[in-house]
């Protein structure tokens, strides 16, 4: 079985316990040596299972796996001596220092003591961790932890490196650095890298991409092989008079359009065949221009197949919420907000205002202070100092009343996993004090508007992630709040579910509900009316997405993305922080 590939799967299937659907089904792959291959697919596609099989952590039900010419099933130990593997939550020992973590892996990988200083120096330099070798791993930021994890996996340069979602939850700056490190290994050491990711924009950085869906391999090839056939099917459509959100909602329902997403100030549209559909919405200033196809277009087209125009119509949310007439008044006012935990300041003097019916984003990496700010706004956490008014109520005096006006969807799935969908909804209706008739009405609304009827009697823990998220959102909306707080609502949700989710959010905002959302997906920032970018507890910038991007427009980057703007801001901030004498 030697066709020169570094990793070969032949007819590999794997089903876990009593699960109905196999995690992997008849998968064949060949990973070419000295290349970076990306494993791309939505949640539950089987990416992690594939990685673990390749690392010898799982045994396949059928099929064969060879890594570097060795049979992984027969000789897992030999394989494990020559590969590097970084699991999704890299197992760093948080109570050990950076150096001690490295030492442990050097011992386990049998790196000779004489070779260590040089290798350590190289790794620390590459990861920028040199100044922190004595710091406990638990005290590092998310991005630094991930880089240390990578360093540990590289301590003895492996011939094959398996990275399972190394960039999840990592800020864009660290993501870029991680990619740079990976490429250096490939170029300098001739390493073969297999890397899985749920960020579709990272596909373009790979030499080759394997597209996975529901345990099957949909395709493999250079990213351009996927996006090129989409040429002539991707368009940018703009209509300043209606605004990007309403335009997107309209376009999503047009037959012949598979996908409509907000990109920058326009809507990106993918069509079923070449050319624009004959019938577009009748808007006078509507302009359409062909767009450079990207991997995501191909991904959506492959996953949605021919189901064009089946994007659910913007759900009828039936909100008789506040009308737009009151729209200019600020419903949330934050002034000089501070929050300390011991001697750690999580939020440092944050100020912003949110107007009624706005979608307002808090953008930042893990640990930027987004969640803390949110919890204060929801009255879950008292502020150390500063003023917070929500729906005109001072949170220090009328916390309970303010809370009755707002809905909150927490970062993790915070519903009762062992209650059914219906039981969860009933519980939340009673928790929000809805009397019997209204509660019945609202639950019926929730089941219908979020298309949860067919799961009504299923335990919510067993729902697909996208449905769990719908249920969580339905529960947060039962009492018809004026303000909806969404904390990282789309993290871990696949691109299809994310699209659907944003459609619902748009419909809510159109109905006059004020939506506050935190996210670390930079492209989602474009859905917001206005946003703040946070880092280390501070607000670095406030404004509309267009403003933010315009600030970083240059000859080099005529059309900067939100991510470019974010990275430029963070870098400027770090330079400032570095310039201040300690």
């Amino acid at each position, binding site marked *: 079985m030697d066709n020169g590939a570094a990793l070969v799967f032949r007819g590999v299937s794997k089903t876990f316990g009593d699960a109905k659907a196999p995690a992997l089904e008849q998968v064949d792959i060949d990973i070419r040596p000295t290349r970076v291959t990306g494993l791309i697919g939505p949640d539950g596609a089987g990416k992690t299972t594939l990685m673990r099989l390749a690392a010898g952590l799982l045994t396949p039900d059928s099929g064969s796996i060879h890594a570097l010419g060795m049979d992984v099933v027969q000789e897992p130990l030999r394989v*494990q001596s020559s590969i590097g593997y970084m699991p999704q939550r890299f197992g760093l020992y948080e109570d050990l220092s950076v150096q001690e973590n490295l030492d442990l892996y050097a011992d386990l990988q049998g790196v000779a003591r004489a070779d260590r200083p040089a290798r350590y120096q190289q790794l620390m330099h590459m990861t920028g961790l040199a100044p922190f070798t004595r710091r406990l791993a638990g005290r590092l930021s998310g991005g630094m932890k991930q880089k240390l994890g990578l360093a540990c996996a590289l301590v003895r340069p492996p011939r094959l490196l398996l990275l399972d979602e190394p960039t999840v939850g990592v800020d864009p700056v660290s993501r870029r650095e991680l990619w740079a490190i990976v490429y250096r290994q490939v170029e300098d050491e001739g390493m073969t890298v297999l890397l899985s990711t749920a960020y579709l924009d990272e596909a373009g950085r790979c030499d080759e991409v394997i597209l996975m869906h529901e345990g099957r391999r949909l395709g493999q090839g250079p990213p351009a092989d996927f996006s090129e056939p989409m040429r002539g099917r991707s368009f940018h459509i703009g209509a300043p008079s209606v605004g990007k959100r309403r335009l997107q909602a309209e376009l999503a329902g047009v037959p012949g359009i598979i996908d409509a997403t907000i990109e920058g100030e326009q809507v990106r549209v993918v069509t079923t065949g070449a050319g624009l559909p004959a019938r577009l919405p009748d808007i006078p200033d509507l302009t359409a221009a062909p767009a450079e196809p990207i991997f995501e277009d191909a991904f959506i087209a492959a996953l949605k197949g021919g189901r064009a125009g089946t994007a659910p119509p913007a759900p009828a949310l039936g909100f008789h919420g506040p009308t737009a007439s009151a729209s200019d008044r600020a419903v949330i006012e934050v002034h000089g907000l501070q929050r300390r935990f011991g001697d750690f300041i999580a939020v440092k003097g944050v100020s912003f205002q949110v107007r009624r019916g706005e979608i307002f984003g808090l953008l930042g990496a893990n640990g930027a202070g987004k969640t803390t700010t949110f919890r204060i706004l929801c009255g879950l956490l008292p502020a150390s100092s500063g003023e917070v008014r929500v729906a005109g109520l001072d949170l220090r005096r009328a916390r309970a009343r303010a809370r009755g006006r707002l809905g909150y969807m927490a970062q993790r799935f915070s519903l009762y996993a062992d209650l059914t969908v219906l039981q969860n909804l009933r519980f939340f209706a009673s928790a929000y004090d809805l009397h019997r008739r209204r509660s019945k009405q609202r639950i019926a609304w929730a089941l219908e508007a979020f298309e949860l009827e067919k799961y009504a009697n299923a335990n919510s823990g067993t729902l697909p992630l996208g449905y769990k998220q719908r249920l969580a959102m339905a529960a947060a909306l039962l009492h018809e709040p004026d303000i909806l707080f969404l904390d990282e609502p789309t993290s871990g949700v696949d691109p299809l579910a994310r699209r659907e989710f944003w459609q619902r959010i748009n419909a809510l905002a159109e109905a006059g509900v004020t939506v506050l959302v935190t996210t670390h997906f930079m492209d989602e920032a474009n859905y917001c009316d206005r946003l703040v970018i946070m880092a280390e507890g501070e607000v670095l910038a406030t404004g509309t997405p267009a403003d933010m991007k315009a600030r970083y427009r240059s000859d080099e980057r005529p059309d900067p993305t939100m991510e470019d703007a974010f990275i430029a801001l963070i870098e400027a901030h770090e330079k400032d922080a570095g310039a201040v004498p300690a």
Partner: protein
Amino acid sequence: MNPAAARRMRLTGMIRKESLQILRDPSSIAIAFIMPVVLLLLFGYGVSLDARKVPLAMVVEQPDANSASLVGAFRHSEYFAPRLFTSLQEARQAFDLREVFGIVWLRNNFSNRLLGQGDAPIGVIINGVDANQARITGGYIQGVWQAWLADYARGRGLTPRVPVVLEPRIWFNAAVRSHNFLVPGLIAVIMTLIGAMLTSMVVAREWERGTMEALMVTPIRIDELVIGKLAPYFLLGMGGMLLSVVMALWQFDVPLRGSFWALTATSALFMLVALGMGLLISVVAKNQFVAGQVSIIVTFLPAFILSGFIFSIGSMPEPIQWITHLIPARYYVAILQSLFLAGDIWPIMLGNSAALAVMMVVFLGLARRRFHKRLDA
């Protein structure tokens, strides 16, 4: 690098990492060193199974020389603190208020019957809520009564009615101090705590935090992983044992009549059994909370209740006695009690050690077999 050197490097790497984690985690230090001290102080001073200065109501309906002499006998006994009452009713009141633990009732015909037939029964009422205490108190009352009666008869030149007088000699623990058997037994409980509970939780923690997955995709072998993981806890457990022995000898004046090396050897054996249980639990549980709960239920509580450390196995119902044979602490408690109070009694030590050795092989063997470098096994 040759394979043996690589092996040694991996093993020392694991041991060093584990030791650092123990040193940085205050809770493992607390379980290994503070918990033993707390438990020993609690059991050494707080729990006593002896009856001493038991408050006793004595109802004397017609005071005379005989009754005064009997009351005196109770007063002189170190076991009782008698209070006098003239009617049963008053004594009942004190009894209900729990001011006294028992009542000794001398009726108004006490002296007459004593003189007449030389047989004057006394009424005894004992609070039976605590059955153990009640039994001990009852026995002591009877002892004082019979001694007094014999004395009385002898004083009058009569043959005492009591047919046989027992003169008990108590061996091994002549002072009948409950310390002397509680404290050695406690060492078994403490080592179970460190060996099984702490270990099961730290292994489960690796599963929970995902560090186990990263460890498994290194060239480390299962044996190295297990030994590297257990060695530091073995030392920690032996340290806890040593601390307990030091406290037993110097704080509680428990004698150590057996040899120290026999104590060390049998303790090491028991420690391995406990580590085996801990490892087995963590392999099955893979989550700190469950591992903690399971180890409390299947190792700690049985070591407490079914090991013979507090409750004598001989007085348990027969089916429960069978169950105690499955509790490793039972064998170790037997060894400890004979080592501390009697000496190196080889038949006891060897028999119980053999049982422990079998359990060690079973637990470590099972844990080793269930512990794979695989996530789906």
